[in-house]
């Protein structure tokens, strides 16, 4: 019984980790005032890169690093278009997603049907055997630890450092920031690249930890869920952590409810994670002041300095 609960918790953590990482990246991007709808595309590019590099070198760590690099390079394409040429962010982000899905399918064609290399767990002897939480806290895959570190890292950066404050000011009012001599576009470029790196890492989690294999379109909409989570969390990292795990818990919980034979219609159970998202979004939006306080005021607005 204890084992079962431990396994359930672990499965939830695995399901939540890619969502959390991708959403954290997007959170920083949006805090800088840029809306990048290309998360799904960057994620799938990271997934295929991680898989390919790990397979070619036999080293999943290199796969992970490769995914981070490709993710950020891919986001740079988006950055160039929306920041330097000031194209429409929504349209550009969408095309980034479509491009990523198509491109990754093409790159990954030869890897279909090949088992991948798994990133092995980091286990701390002794502590791993603590009942219920031992494996969760001391015996997980490296990307899980990175994801938790990232939550607190991003929190510290956004709210405790001067650079973080500047980044938020760029997202809230780019004209004032510009007038103060802050290089708005440079901040946004770095934010976008951080978002890309995170999405790439989240993708690598899918092909190196979650299901170590390459299958076309295997992100199956997780990038979109990550985008929703950012709003869900009202642009706060800790709420994002809660949201990602809530989402993971509901989606894994419904599978268990079915296997237990509770007699609840499976269609209803499958829609639970999305219902939960809607409910939380409604609750958040009823408090208008709170929403406005956290929403980056310049989100999605192009900035052209010469004007």
């Amino acid at each position: 019984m204890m084992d079962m609960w431990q396994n359930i918790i672990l499965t939830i953590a695995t399901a939540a980790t890619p969502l959390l990482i991708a959403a954290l990246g997007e959170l920083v991007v949006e805090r800088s005032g840029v809306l990048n709808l290309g998360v799904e595309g960057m994620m799938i590019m990271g997934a295929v890169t991680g898989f390919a590099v790990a397979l070619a070198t036999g080293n999943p760590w290199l796969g992970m690093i490769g995914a981070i690099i490709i993710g950020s390079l891919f986001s740079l394409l988006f950055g160039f278009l929306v920041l330097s040429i000031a194209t429409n962010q929504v349209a550009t982000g969408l095309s980034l997603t479509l491009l990523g899905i198509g491109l990754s399918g093409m790159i990954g064609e030869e890897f279909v049907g090949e088992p991948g290399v798994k990133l092995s767990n980091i286990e701390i002897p002794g502590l791993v055997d603590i009942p219920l939480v031992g494996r969760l806290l001391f015996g997980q895959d490296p990307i899980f630890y990175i994801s938790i570190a990232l939550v607190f890292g991003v929190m510290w950066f956004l709210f405790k450092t001067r650079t973080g404050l500047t980044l938020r000011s760029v997202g809230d009012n780019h004209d004032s920031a510009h007038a103060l001599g802050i290089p708005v576009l440079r901040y946004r470029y770095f934010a976008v690249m951080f978002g890309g790196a995170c999405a790439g890492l989240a993708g690598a989690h899918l092909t190196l930890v979650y299901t170590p294999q390459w299958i076309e379109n295997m992100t199956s909409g997780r990038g979109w869920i990550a985008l929703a989570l950012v709003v869900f969390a009202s642009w706060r990292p800790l709420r994002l952590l809660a949201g990602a795990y809530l989402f993971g818990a509901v989606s894994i919980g419904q599978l268990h409810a079915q296997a237990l034979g509770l007699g609840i219609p499976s269609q209803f159970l499958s829609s639970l994670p999305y219902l939960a998202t809607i409910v939380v979004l409604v609750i958040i939006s009823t408090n208008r002041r709170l929403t406005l306080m956290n929403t980056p005021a310049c989100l999605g607005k192009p900035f052209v300095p010469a004007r």
Partner: protein
Amino acid sequence: MKKMILALAASAVMGLGVSAAEAKTKACFIYVGPIGDFGWSYQHDRGRLDVEEALGDEVETAYLESVPEGPDAERALERFARSGCNIIFATSFGYMDQVNQVAADFPDVKFEHATGYKREHPNVSTYNSKFHEGRYVQGQIAASVSDAGVAGYIASFPIPEVVMGINSFILGAQSVNPDFELKVVWVNTWFDPSKEGDAAKALIDQGADIITQHTDSTAPMQVAAERGVKAFGQASDMIDFGKETQLTSIIDDWGPYYIERVKAVIEGDWEQVDVWDGMTEGHVVMAPYTNMPEDVKKLAMDTEAKIKAGEFDPFTGPITKQDGTEWLKEGEVADIGTLLGMNFYVKGVDDELPQ
């Protein structure tokens, strides 16, 4: 989606230039998943390649992958019909209504719909394979090698095809162990590797030591391998994902049918059919029996041989429905109509069928 749009655009452009080379017969395929799923759509695409290989210069093929079931399929079908396809294979159950709608507008184009049952126009054929024959064999294997006496079944959508598979599996299992238990998890998708993997984990956590799936990716096999339980592959031979895990796999071999039908179009003698072939015709093939004791292997091969020879049908009475009422009397064999519209479980399935 992007690929689909690209392919649609490409086929539109190609459509302009196709009239010059009218001599070739054009066979077009619509897949519900990516051809790289290594499962359902992958096998259909293998069938397409078989057509190219067998008929060579006489034929030209095209395909669209990841076409969602529903209204999008209508656009894809129409585009194909307009672009000069002579025969269109729509390879998923959910394209059923769209195939019949589009077929009405293009009486000269032949439509072949996989796993459906509606043939509203003379230019629509349906074809399917008796996958449940393989599922029965799998059920027998599962009950023989399982220590826990519990198997987990990852199911996609509650359509007759899938329900039939579940029933056949439990009947096979009960023929070996009458108390065998089957847990079913519906994931409501044909293809989502992570979700399928999560479902496998949930089933294993709840005591199943055999995993079988009616979804299209290799993820459940991989999870089973990781957790050290046994599993059955789906649609293609997935042995590479579980060398010590896969017991066998039901392989869909669509090639022979596709070649036959395209040939019929070339020769001008295509006629509406409703094909439901199985092991006998070689449309359902079992992957090598692995990771099981010799006596189980023999049992499986015997059953397979009997089904192949037409001596045995998995749905032979006595069979009781889940609600306790009698379905088939001793020796009675299920009629095709009931099977193709199957919307009930037989006794022994630990699940409530979503309606």
